[in-house]
């Protein structure tokens, strides 16, 4: 006995909306889905007539649906927007090749210009090359930081007014929950805002902020939109993975919890003295940064100097590594130290799963049990294709664990842990005093999923 559409249109219902519990037919669902996004856009005043807007396109479900709906609404409601697609090619063999094909399909289907920017062009390194250099352990860090800035650079090249990303309601709710779970009240304060961006930066807007993931997927299914999905599922043992699983479990029992959590995040009062680091421009690349030198530049410096861990650990460690690098430039010990560090990294990266001789299809490492205690955060998604594509969050614990090993190595090479900063050539690289990792991981509420699945790097849905 078919269920009829709740609107009384006489058609057979095809889905139950999680947000309202209504059973709707296809056409009534499309209408409700698109109209709600239109309402979100107008109420949030996301765009102004005549503006150019870049849609961050990853080829995934969120950005594909976003592009489709933006095209539809722009025409239907005469937004007068000049829409274009902006895609980042991280240089991940087998991953981006496929997803970029999907993005090109979007370009043709929606008749929007497409700009693809590669890490290779922007930074001189592909993710494949970075992984070869640092192992897989921290690649999501590089990927997330580089991608975030790559979008800014792309948007500047396209001369757009803002970047629309595909973050959906589930993503936002997850981020609210994560910020609560991490005690990150400063970010809790702004993570629900529909438009982010400060002076001198290109704002990011989230038209799908109130749109459920289930509806995005059902919309794409019924509209036959083609999108790309990664093998990488979030790691069940990652902190964020737990938060996400919890959210999905709760959503099953009470679907309105997604909206309720967003509402809580939006209306929660935060003490006045909680503030975010002020944003400024990186002295090197001139893109937005909370430090004098931005994270992308620090990571790049590390790569180019053969000290790829630079910028991954605590900044105090980075400073020491750099100090060591600069002061021992003529000594062969340096080569040995670096070699050791690199060897160490390769081991760390590979023993997660590729040492088993096959890649983990699920995106989850088979050897995870060994790591659950110390390595609670992530990289169980050690699939080489993942590279930040999973929903994994990279917690600081892991970084600290890595630092311990590095410290041991540094000690072996006679570097004094407690040495002060005197005598450092600050011109070489002004490593900021704040905890880079903390900032890296939390800025923009992104774990690596952005690309990797979710909010991590704005990739997510990009």
């Amino acid at each position, binding site marked *: 006995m078919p*269920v009829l559409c709740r609107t009384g249109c006489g058609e*057979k*219902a*095809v*889905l*139950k909306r999680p947000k309202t519990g209504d*059973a709707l037919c296809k056409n009534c669902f499309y209408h409700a889905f698109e109209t709600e996004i239109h309402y979100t856009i107008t109420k949030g005043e996301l765009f102004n007539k005549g503006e150019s807007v870049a849609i961050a396109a*990853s*080829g*995934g*479900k*969120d*950005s*594909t649906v976003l592009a489709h709906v933006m095209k539809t609404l722009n025409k239907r409601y005469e937004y007068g927007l000049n829409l274009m697609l902006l895609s980042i090619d991280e240089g991940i063999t087998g991953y981006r090749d496929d*997803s970029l094909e999907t993005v090109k399909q979007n370009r043709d289907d929606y008749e929007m210009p497409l700009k693809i920017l590669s890490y290779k062009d922007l930074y001189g390194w592909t993710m494949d090359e970075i992984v070869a250099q640092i192992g897989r352990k921290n690649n999501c860090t590089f990927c997330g930081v580089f991608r975030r800035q790559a979008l800014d650079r792309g948007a500047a090249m396209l001369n757009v007014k803002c970047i629309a990303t595909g973050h959906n309601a589930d993503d936002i709710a997850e981020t609210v929950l994560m910020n609560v779970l991490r005690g990150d009240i400063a970010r809790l304060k702004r993570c629900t805002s529909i438009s982010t961006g400060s002076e001198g930066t290109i704002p990011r807007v989230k038209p799908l902020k109130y749109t459920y*993931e*289930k509806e*995005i*997927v*059902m919309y794409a*299914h019924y509209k036959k939109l083609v*999108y*790309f*999905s*990664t*093998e*990488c*599922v*979030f790691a*069940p043992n990652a902190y964020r993975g737990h938060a996400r*699983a919890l959210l*999905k*479990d709760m*959503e*099953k029992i009470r679907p309105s919890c997604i909206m309720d959590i967003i509402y809580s995040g939006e209306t929660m009062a935060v003490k006045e003295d909680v503030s975010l680091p002020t944003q400024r421009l990186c002295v090197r690349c001139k893109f937005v940064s909370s430090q004098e030198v931005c994270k992308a530049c620090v990571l790049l410096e590390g790569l180019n100097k053969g000290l790829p861990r630079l910028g991954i650990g605590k900044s105090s460690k980075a400073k020491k590594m750099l100090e060591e690098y600069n002061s021992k430039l003529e000594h062969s010990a340096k080569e040995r130290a670096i070699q050791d560090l690199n060897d160490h990294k390769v081991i760390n990266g590979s023993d997660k799963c590729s040492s088993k001789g096959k890649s983990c*299809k*699920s995106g*989850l490492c088979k050897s995870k049990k060994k790591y659950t205690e110390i390595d609670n955060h992530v990289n169980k998604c050690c699939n080489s294709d993942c590279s930040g*594509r*999973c*929903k994994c969050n990279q917690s600081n614990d892991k970084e600290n664990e890595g630092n311990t090993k590095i410290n041991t190595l540094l000690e072996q090479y006679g570097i004094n842990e407690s040495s002060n900063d005197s005598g450092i050539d600050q011109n070489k690289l002004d490593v900021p005093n704040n905890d880079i990792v903390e900032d890296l991981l939390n800025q923009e509420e992104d774990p690596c*999923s952005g*690309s*990797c*699945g*979710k909010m991590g790097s704005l*990739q*997510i*849905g*990009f």
Partner: protein
Amino acid sequence: MSQLKVILQFSGGAELLFDKIKKREVELPVLEKYLPQINKSEWSIRELLVWMKDNLLKERPELFLQGDSVRPGILVLINDSDWELYGELDYKIQNGDAIMFISTLHGG
């Protein structure tokens, strides 16, 4: 006992858990023989998931199943309609039904 053929479809990344095959036709055995302990004669989605776990899902079933159902975040469509409209696990499978599993958990 008449035969029971169903079409299983996988997308959104769910196919990656099933040898990357997006569509397959399967024939379900007589339920009294396959699961004699439950003492039922009609297949519902609940038993289908058990059969899938035994026959199709080779590794990491926890990415697809949770408890006696699918993992939250995996959508189920029965003849292209949301299973939430059709009793979910209790839906009685009919010969020729198309059951689709779409993952929302895989990133893009």
